[in-house]
């Protein structure tokens, strides 16, 4: 399994190397337009050494942490509330159904108008983008909680607050983690767009700078770093999930 995956990735790298070095040798198109793995590696090493790469990574991750973090807290609280309280759900449903199909990027200029070019617009934009899908997923996870579990707990003496933190949250937790993974992936997706416009740091800015100064290798490097960040965080969340939810697969190991 693991070997197949590594081989597949090496295969992609080999194809990229063959095409880009081949192009350089044969001169099909301007070599700078098609950076080779070596070019990208050089930019990576240089920006990593002088620290600019880390500054961009930290800036982007900081924005994601604040925007996504605030959205996650709000989605959790409101998702629970909407799932448990029918009037709230009936009120929120049409609003969400109306807002959700609008591509988030369509509102990005609005955020720039409202919050200016500084940090606030990026953070708010990430928060706005990630909130709706996470909210919907959290509410759905809570609604899926088996009502007989609540009855069983109530018959053991659980009050409303006990039901929330001892039954609803643990029962919905697998769905909640999926919601968070979805939200984080989306945050990574839109941070680039937000940083394209009027940012002075961040991976999106790094990529845009590559376009402005005609450094295709830097563009590719920025994109690859984003991909890597996404994979690492996803892997961490998956590992946390496996630890947290041993009870779901415990049968297989006994």
């Amino acid at each position: 399994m693991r070997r197949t995956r590594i081989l597949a990735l090496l295969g992609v790298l080999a194809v990229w190397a063959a095409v880009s070095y081949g192009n350089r040798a044969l001169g099909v198109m301007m070599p700078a337009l098609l950076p080779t793995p070596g070019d990208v590696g050089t930019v990576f090493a240089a920006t990593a050494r002088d620290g600019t790469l880390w500054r961009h990574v930290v800036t982007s991750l900081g924005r994601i942490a604040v925007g996504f973090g605030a959205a996650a807290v709000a989605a959790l609280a409101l998702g629970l509330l909407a799932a448990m309280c029918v009037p709230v759900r009936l009120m929120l449903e049409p609003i969400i159904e109306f807002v959700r199909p609008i591509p988030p990027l369509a509102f990005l200029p609005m955020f720039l108008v409202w919050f200016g070019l500084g940090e606030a617009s990026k953070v708010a934009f990430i928060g706005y983008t990630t909130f709706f899908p996470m909210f919907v997923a959290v509410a759905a996870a809570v609604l899926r909680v088996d009502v007989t579990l609540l009855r069983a707990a109530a018959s053991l003496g659980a009050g409303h607050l006990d039901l929330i933190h001892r039954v609803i949250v643990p029962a919905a937790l697998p769905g909640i983690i999926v919601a968070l993974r979805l939200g984080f992936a989306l945050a990574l997706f839109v941070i680039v767009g937000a940083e394209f416009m009027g940012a002075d740091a961040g991976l999106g800015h790094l990529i845009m700078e590559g376009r402005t100064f005609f450094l295709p290798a830097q563009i590719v490097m920025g994109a690859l770093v984003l991909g890597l960040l996404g994979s690492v965080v996803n892997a961490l969340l998956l590992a946390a999930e496996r630890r947290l939810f041993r009870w779901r697969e415990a049968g297989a190991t006994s």
Partner: protein
Amino acid sequence: MNIHVRGLSRTFIAQGRETPALLDVDLEVAEHEFVCLLGPSGCGKSTLLNIVAGFLRPSAGEVRVGGRPVTGPGADRGVVFQEYVLFPWLTVDGNVQFGLKLKGSPAAERRAVVARYLELVGLAAHAEKYPVQLSGGMKQRVAIARALANNPEIILMDEPFGALDAQTREVLQDELGRIQRVEHKTVLFVTHSIREAVYLADRVVVMTTAPGRIKQVFQIKLPEVRDRFAPEFTHYESEITRVVKEEVAKVHE
């Protein structure tokens, strides 16, 4: 603590039509008494149990438990469900001490109570397992231990052995009989198995179908430890079967 059901009715709305599930049911369950509600499916016996548990509200009439009207579920009435309903994210130990934790019992006491009831249901060696690792019979033993550990005065059981195979079913009936001789709970037990009812109950209440009413009550005058093959046992069995058959026949008319 006794259960006192007076003039209880409950209607459900199905396909825009009001369907009565229970109609004017009166029932007394004395303290420490084991009463089986027996009847074909759709006779409202589970509805009655769910109202006593506080999961459903009656359309008319009232239920009093120890003299106090039932307004919702509570720790005084432990419930054992047909489909076990264990908390899958908790171990056997965590499930059994769930109610004690809610009450804020100290850890030492919780440990002692869990040990006692896991011993009683024969699962002492499985305390650290998760529900997915258990068979149906073991899950239901955990559910029984969980209900008992909370020390309710009343236990409500809704076809608890209905999902188990015939052999496991009889083993658990034996165990429940043994447990009841120790614990002396007030038990309301829903089943559609006549044998099970005669084996366990002090009184068997046969219900009519659609709407559910009480058709006939049998006092089971058999020794505490019962023999499924004794002539008196089979006598009760055939007598109750005759009464239940009338109801089943009505469903098919």
